[in-house]
């Protein structure tokens, strides 16, 4: 539960920053008067205007941030053709604010990747057992088998070795997808943490310090991009891109069935035969597994890169307006 975020301390700090900056500018103005230095006076007059612009921007960000917490997910979900009710891990209710909806959407993608990962792990486990299964019947004449066994050993499910290699590929992809989702969840937590909000009061001070305006502008640009645009994009994506809707009910059922399999003597293949699964069943389950891996990868990694590029484009333009070009595209290198 991210919201409500208590931002009263950020408002207080911003006011404090405003006061400190105003005092600094006032002292500069007084010094300018005392030294009869018109450049200092002009600088002070220009800066006091900039301070109010900075405060306005910060208050705007905080206001939008508050609005995001007050925003109802259900007010947007009517726009979507995607069945948002299929989000179950955890469910996204209609009264979720933007930050919570964004985080829960990521958790659902993570659950999807995890389900795919568990399915392929079970399938590989079953294939491991199947491929090692061997038969060594005694070669006739049967009577001589009492003295010693003459047999021809065969492994009827050797094909499993091939599918284990394919499963390894899917497992690798799923692991990358799952870790990428975890990174994004951590990123959302970081965004909504109170520490990052410290950037905003600092931006007010920096924008009024000599030679530091660009840094302050950059901080505000980063604030806008990652506080507002990134969670907003995730919520829009949640309305129109549900990975669960990309697999059919039968495929999801196959994934779930495989993911919840236990193997050993009581389930899967046993030494004397196979319970519950035939080799054909397991091979058949690799179709949905490969599809789920591809969808999980696209939902987690591709969309993450897309979101980062979008927020970096926004931050760059906004930063340029405030005097500092910001390059957030390096964030994509997390991948």
């Amino acid at each position, binding site marked *: 539960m991210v919201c409500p975020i208590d931002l009263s301390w950020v408002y207080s700090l911003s006011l404090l920053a405003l006061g400190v900056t105003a005092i600094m500018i006032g002292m500069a103005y007084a010094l300018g008067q005392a030294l009869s230095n018109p450049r200092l006076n002009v600088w002070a007059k220009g800066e006091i205007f900039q301070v109010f612009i900075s405060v306005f921007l910060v208050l705007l960000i905080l206001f939008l941030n508050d609005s995001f917490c007050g925003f109802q997910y259900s007010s947007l979900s009517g726009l979507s053709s995607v069945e948002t009710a299929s989000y179950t891990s955890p469910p996204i209710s209609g009264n979720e604010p933007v930050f919570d909806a964004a985080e829960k959407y990521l958790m659902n993608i993570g659950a999807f990747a995890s389900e795919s990962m568990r399915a392929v792990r079970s399938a590989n486990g079953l294939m491991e057992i199947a491929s090692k299964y061997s038969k060594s019947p005694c070669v006739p004449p049967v009577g001589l088998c009492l003295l010693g066994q003459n047999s021809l050993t065969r492994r009827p499910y050797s094909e499993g070795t091939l599918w284990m*290699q394919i499963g390894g590929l899917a497992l690798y992809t799923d692991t990358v997808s799952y870790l990428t989702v975890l990174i994004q969840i951590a990123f959302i937590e970081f965004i909504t943490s109170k520490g990052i909000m410290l950037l905003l009061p600092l931006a007010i001070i920096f924008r009024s310090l000599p030679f530091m305006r660009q840094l302050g502008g950059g901080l505000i640009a980063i604030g806008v991009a990652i506080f507002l645009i990134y969670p907003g994009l995730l919520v829009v994506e949640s309305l129109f891109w549900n990975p669960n809707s990309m697999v059919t009910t039968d495929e999801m059922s196959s994934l779930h069935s495989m993911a919840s399999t236990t193997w050993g003597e009581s389930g899967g293949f046993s030494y004397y035969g196979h319970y519950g699964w035939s080799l054909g069943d397991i091979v058949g389950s690799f179709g949905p597994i490969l599809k789920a891996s591809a969808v999980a990868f696209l939902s987690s990694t591709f969309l993450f890169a897309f979101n980062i590029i979008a927020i970096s484009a926004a931050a760059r333009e906004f930063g340029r*307006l405030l005097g500092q070009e910001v390059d957030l595209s390096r964030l994509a290198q997390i991948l």
Partner: protein
Amino acid sequence: MRKLLLALALISLAFAGPYAWQSLALLALFAGLGVLIIFYLLSYVADSPEMRGMATSEMYQLFMTGVIIAIFVGVESFSTATMAGMLGGAFGAENSHINYSINVTQGMVDYQWGQLKSFSGVVGDMAQVSAYSGQCAFLGFTFGYNGCASIAVPVTSGIIAARAMATSLMVLESQLALLYMARDFFFPILLPIGLFLRTFHVTRGAGGFLIAIAAAFYFIYPITILVTKGVYDQSAYGNVKAAFPSINAPADYGYANGDCDPYELKYSYTSTIITEFNDNGLVDPLLSHFFIGGLLTTAISLLAALSSVRALTRIFGTEVDVSALARIA
């Protein structure tokens, strides 16, 4: 006055097509107009000529947004009407280029999945032959011999090939998901959002990027897929079906050896299977279908789309570096 007439024409276009994106795009356009009008009025309240100048120059961008919408309406009409006629004979009746592309990709996925399962059956039979071994025990002495083990060598090659085929299959599945994403999310949703955002100077970069992504993945990506598929079908192996050899695995009952007797040292056992594996029209068509028809054509389509994104961002907003997406591709 002329601008007003154009705006009125654009309203009618909003209801011209079968998709909802036009309405949303027009809504975005008018929302942008509303914000700029408020900005313009505020400039009088604040008596700020700079603000007024900025609002006026942004009006020009709004006009350009209207032109962009008109262009997209035209391009989509062309792609749905004209391409349906061009492609109907080859790919069946559909109502848009992207649905053709989805059908083509789904067909390739189904075909490759079938081929992969058939191939795994062949390699599985070979694996059974290679694992076939004999034991003879008498009064405490045991003699074991794996006379067919050398067949494991081509089995290993087969497994590596199957893994590569699975890679191709996953790439095609990703392509399919990306096409659905382009049809259901990028174009109908991101395009209007992008059109709205590009109206304002501050968000023009993000808006241009969203428009570019929507256009590249809705138009260029599926059309390139269809073109590369057509080119591939005309190639030497485009329509050649793989012939799967019949490898005889040892029988479960009856003690029939299949293609190898573990007690006999015969080079021909291995060489026959390898010959079957290599020369029976199996490997070449399969490699072609999976590597050229699957991986290479997908890579070309994706690179074409991503390359165009950068160029389009320059047209629609400001240049955006999309190398992160290219790296994932």
